[in-house]
């Protein structure tokens, strides 16, 4: 019956109508339930809400409204597919608020027509049901979700800087009450089926195999699905609403420091909408969408979304997606970095042999994994047997047993070229010829490690950031001999363990550390000039960084930071200098947070407090010249910007967009500002050049604009 375009055997069949296009199909079951099946656009894997889809839905609704089936079920084209949400490109290209409001209103109108259909309606969800997809489901009387592993339900709009615009802010609070509707709207989380059921987002979870059958029963009232009840009286009382809304607002402000308007607007329209008719609430929502979607923050966040998507290109070869091909791996050196890498691999299903001369490191890695997996079980993110299987994949290996069967070896031992070369020589003689050999070096060249090795084309740098479990970026370092296939496999591996891959050149500091270096160095310079460490950190935090540069140095460890600074100073004099300030502290055995003392002191529970001893240790007068916070932040960030343009000029990365992505995902540049280069060029290249030249004149060569920037300013070149 899937072919059926007419409405089946019903006596009240609708008259023949214009074909609905290929984006949705109608079908009638023998029990006179109408199935509305969404279809993806040609070439797409998932179904997105775009203009042709809206056209198709409108055309179908015309026919549906004239028919009278016993029930209507909305469903996707197959297992793991429903409606993935509105086409993000459509939102990205919105410039005119009036047009944006019109677009939202059109979507709302379609969904409102669904909500007003006479027969009972049900959304049968399998796979992604996000944003506009979930808003459509909310317009149905019931929602059931399949237990398909890819089922995800939610309103992720605020994460892209926009307000849900197809009725989500109005229908969800009417369904659940404001208090229960708040977390899904505010956090933008995408929930698996069971979690969605607990939260009330869906009415039942059913086996994937029986989704259609049970959807039909459900819509015919045979599953005992709950009657839709209006939001409780209490929730509608204006004082209660205001209380919930203002608490949510306070919490959101605390988290976002007011830089992200979307969550605030979403909770505002949700709260106010409850006190008015749905029509007026929807109008309010459409205006909020128009405002947020055309605002700068959304544009920046959407840009990052697309950059993130574009990072998938690294895992392809000649237009073909590459598989990591890693079922078994070994991690040699299970310290902070190696241990974290092993845990992520095990979590993603890879069996990992753990090698470390120090049994304590292996024990600590197992403890760290166990804590992480136990916590996932406690938060119902994993079943106990899954956690145990992940632990079983972490396999302490005595003297290299099991290396022969590994598809990947990750080296994370001490940063010594001789030690690494010796290890790689030993590995090369034992592992399979097609195994990928990766080094997690942060300061040595991949080329130097791979030189002279048999088959150096399979050696690649995998530069993880600390803490490995949290930092989303993974630099894939290609040495001169690294093959395109090895690099693509490494990128595919990054995606498999939920990291964003970025190809970077094999120079000192690769990309992130080379760009972060001047920023940290500038913080030291400011300190030497007499600015208080608190002021520097506060300025960076006010700019939007999660922590300030001085506190970050303490967290990283001053010995680690000094080593990185030295290797940069050796590679790029005179822009980078020897880390004098760090050395002073290290001489006083201040290693940062790990030793309880660095720039700051660390009290009980790791609380950071100012250290009155610091000026004496550094030999500087503690006199704040009283620079305004904005000026401090600008100096810090422009130091990074100067180096970022040099990286682009030197070909460390291909595109300016990669710098934006790397700055946000690699060192905490505020996402709402869209990334380092985007922020720097906000006022145009000329203005940037003027600011840089001014800093160059006052503070030295590290601010010297590079040729690329000069050419940009004189419009001889433009950024890709």
């Amino acid at each position, binding site marked *: 019956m899937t072919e059926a375009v007419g409405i089946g055997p019903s006596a009240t069949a609708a008259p023949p109508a214009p074909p609905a296009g290929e984006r949705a199909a109608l079908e009638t079951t023998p029990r006179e339930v109408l199935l509305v099946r969404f279809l993806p656009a040609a070439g797409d894997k998932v179904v997105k809400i775009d203009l042709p889809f809206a056209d198709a839905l409108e055309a179908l609704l015309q026919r549906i409204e004239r028919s009278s089936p016993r029930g209507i079920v909305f469903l996707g084209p197959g297992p793991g597919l429903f409606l993935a949400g509105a086409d993000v490109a459509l939102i990205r290209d919105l410039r005119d608020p009036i047009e944006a409001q019109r677009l939202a209103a059109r979507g709302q109108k379609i969904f409102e027509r669904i909500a007003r259909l006479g027969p009972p309606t049900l959304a049968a969800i399998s796979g992604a049901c996000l944003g506009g997809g979930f808003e459509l489901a909310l317009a149905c009387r019931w929602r059931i979700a399949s237990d398909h592993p890819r089922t995800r339900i939610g309103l992720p709009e605020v994460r892209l800087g926009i307000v849900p615009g197809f009725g989500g802010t109005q229908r969800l609070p009417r369904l659940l009450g404001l208090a229960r509707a708040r977390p899904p709207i505010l956090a933008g989380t995408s929930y698996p089926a069971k979690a969605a059921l607990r939260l009330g987002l869906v009415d039942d979870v059913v086996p994937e195999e029986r989704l259609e059958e049970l959807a039909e029963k459900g819509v015919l009232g045979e599953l005992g699905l709950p009657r839709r009840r209006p939001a409780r009286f209490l929730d509608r009382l204006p004082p209660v609403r205001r209380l919930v809304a203002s608490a949510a607002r306070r919490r959101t402000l605390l988290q976002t420091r007011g830089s992200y308007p979307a969550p605030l607007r979403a909770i505002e329209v949700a709260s106010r909408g409850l006190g008015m008719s749905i029509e007026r609430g929807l109008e309010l929502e459409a205006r909020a969408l128009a405002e947020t979607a055309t605002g700068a923050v959304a544009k920046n966040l959407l840009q990052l979304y697309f950059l993130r998507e574009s990072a998938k290109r690294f895992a392809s070869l000649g237009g073909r997606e590459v598989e990591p091909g890693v079922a*078994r791996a070994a991690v040699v050196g299970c310290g902070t970095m190696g241990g974290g890498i092993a845990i992520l691999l095990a979590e993603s299903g890879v069996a990992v042999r753990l090698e470390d001369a120090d*049994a304590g490191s292996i024990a600590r890695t*197992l*403890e760290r994994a166990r804590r992480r997996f136990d916590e996932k079980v406690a938060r119902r993110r994993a079943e106990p047997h899954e956690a145990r299987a992940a632990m079983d994949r972490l396999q302490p290996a005595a003297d290299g047993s099991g290396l022969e069967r590994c598809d990947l070896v990750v080296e994370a031992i001490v940063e010594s070229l001789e030690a690494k070369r010796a290890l790689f020589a030993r590995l090369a003689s034992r592992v399979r010829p097609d195994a990928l050999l990766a080094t997690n070096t942060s300061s040595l060249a991949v080329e130097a490690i791979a030189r002279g090795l048999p088959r150096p084309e399979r050696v690649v740098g995998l530069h993880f950031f600390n803490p490995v479990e949290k930092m989303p970026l993974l630099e894939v370092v290609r040495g001169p001999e690294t093959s395109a296939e090895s690099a693509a496999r490494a990128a595919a591996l990054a995606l498999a363990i939920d990291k964003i891959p970025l190809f970077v050149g094999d120079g000192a500091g690769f990309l992130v550390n080379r760009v972060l270096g001047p920023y940290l160095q500038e913080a030291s310079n400011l300190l030497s000039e007499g600015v208080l460490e608190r002021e520097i950190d506060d300025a960076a935090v006010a700019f939007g960084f999660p922590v300030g540069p001085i506190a970050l140095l303490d967290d990283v460890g001053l010995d680690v930071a000094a080593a990185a600074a030295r290797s940069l100073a050796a590679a790029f004099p005179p822009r980078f200098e020897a880390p004098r300030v760090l050395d002073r502290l290290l001489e006083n055995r201040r290693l940062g947070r790990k030793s309880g003392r660095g720039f700051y002191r660390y009290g009980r529970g790791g609380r950071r407090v100012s250290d009155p001893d610091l000026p004496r240790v550094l030999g500087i007068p503690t006199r704040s010249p009283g620079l305004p916070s904005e000026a401090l932040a600008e100096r810090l960030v422009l130091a990074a910007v100067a180096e970022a343009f040099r990286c682009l000029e030197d070909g460390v990365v291909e595109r300016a967009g990669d710098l934006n992505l790397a700055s946000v995902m690699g060192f905490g540049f505020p996402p709402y500002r869209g990334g380092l280069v985007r922020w720097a060029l906000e006022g145009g290249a000329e203005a940037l050049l003027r600011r840089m030249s001014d800093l160059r004149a006052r503070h030295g060569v590290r601010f010297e604009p590079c040729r690329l920037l000069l050419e940009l300013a004189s419009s001889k070149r433009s950024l890709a």
Partner: protein
Amino acid sequence: MSGAGRPAIFGGVRTPFARAGTDLAALSASDLGTLVVRETLARAGLDGSELDEVILGCVGPDAGEANPARVAAIRAGVPVRVPAATVGRNCASGFEAVTSAADRLAAGRGSLYLVGGTESMSNYPLSYPREFARVLAQASRARGLPAKVAAFARLRPSSFKPRVAILEGLTDPTCGMIMGKTAERLALEFRIPRGEQDRFACESQNRAERAREAGRLAEETLPVFAPEDGAQGSPRYREVRSDNGIRPGQSEEALARLRPYFERRHGTVTVGNSSQVTDGACTLLLGEEERGRALGLSPLGYLRGYAYAGCAPERMGLGPVFATSRLLEREGVSLAELDRIEMNEAFAAQVLACLRAFASDRFAREELARPRALGEIDPSRLNPNGGAIALGHPVGATGARLLLTLLLELRRAGGRLGLATLCVGGGQGGALLVEAA
């Protein structure tokens, strides 16, 4: 089982053996099994898809793991299409795994097996009497509160008295004797004084200590990272490198001070001259030589033959004599030809009784239907690296451990023929004859 088709053994590995309730107490039978299955495959450079079956002995599986061999195989990454069986013959369960695989091989049912045993005696359950379970079942079926109360009213204080599986497991249901008492009985029958038992136990401890110091035990042992037992929240992990039942510097004087455990007043068997209650696992690869070589494996030795034999349950300790007699006769080998013997030390008295029986013409005539004694066993060829008195006796795993220890020791000594034998609670003996590669 001779000729080209004889099963080859390609090496294996065991966990350290740890006294129950100590280093490995937090690990279940399948946890321990997982560790050795995984490592045996890794050391052989296999991924498990090469196997025809995984067969493990286990006497006391966890209530949640009806087939620990299957659980361990899957957890160790063996592909799900490879089947797994848990087999039992009490103390010979590890042997049973080996000989089951050998039989399947001989029958042409497969060519490569992962065999061994696993036992967590720390995790032997406490259970409630049958009466308690029956009442609970009745109460859950009962309709209405009065009926439920009536069901519970049938409980008596004795209904709650826990049954300790480990004690029940060590008690023979047919003769009602706990294993230690069977050893006392042999000590009486063969007139084995306390001093001789302690001397044997002391030698076992001293040999094990020397073997550990010389690194001979490490050759067969996989260091294990074990979580601490009974942790609140996520546990800490500790590396366990070696067997913890070995008592360094053990002396006969110290052993002589221990009180008899099973016969308080006139007994001779103490915890010091008995095997220990222990956690551990051991696995080996067993298969056709050609198959193994094609996979890049070289044999450590070959299983030339095996035998099991029964005897009176109250004399279960003599099992090795009956089984060995049958095996040697079948294979046409004499006791003197054996370069190394691993005989499980369930009790010093029991091993010493076996040695006397081996050497006794009368025993041979009356019990073995042989005209003459099997012969004297040269003490230097018997358990040269100590035995279960020092290392412990994780029941299901011991058979595999004896086989692994024997093969490694034959290779070290340059010997040709070896015997692994043990007594089995319930009145049996098992014996394996191996030939070095």
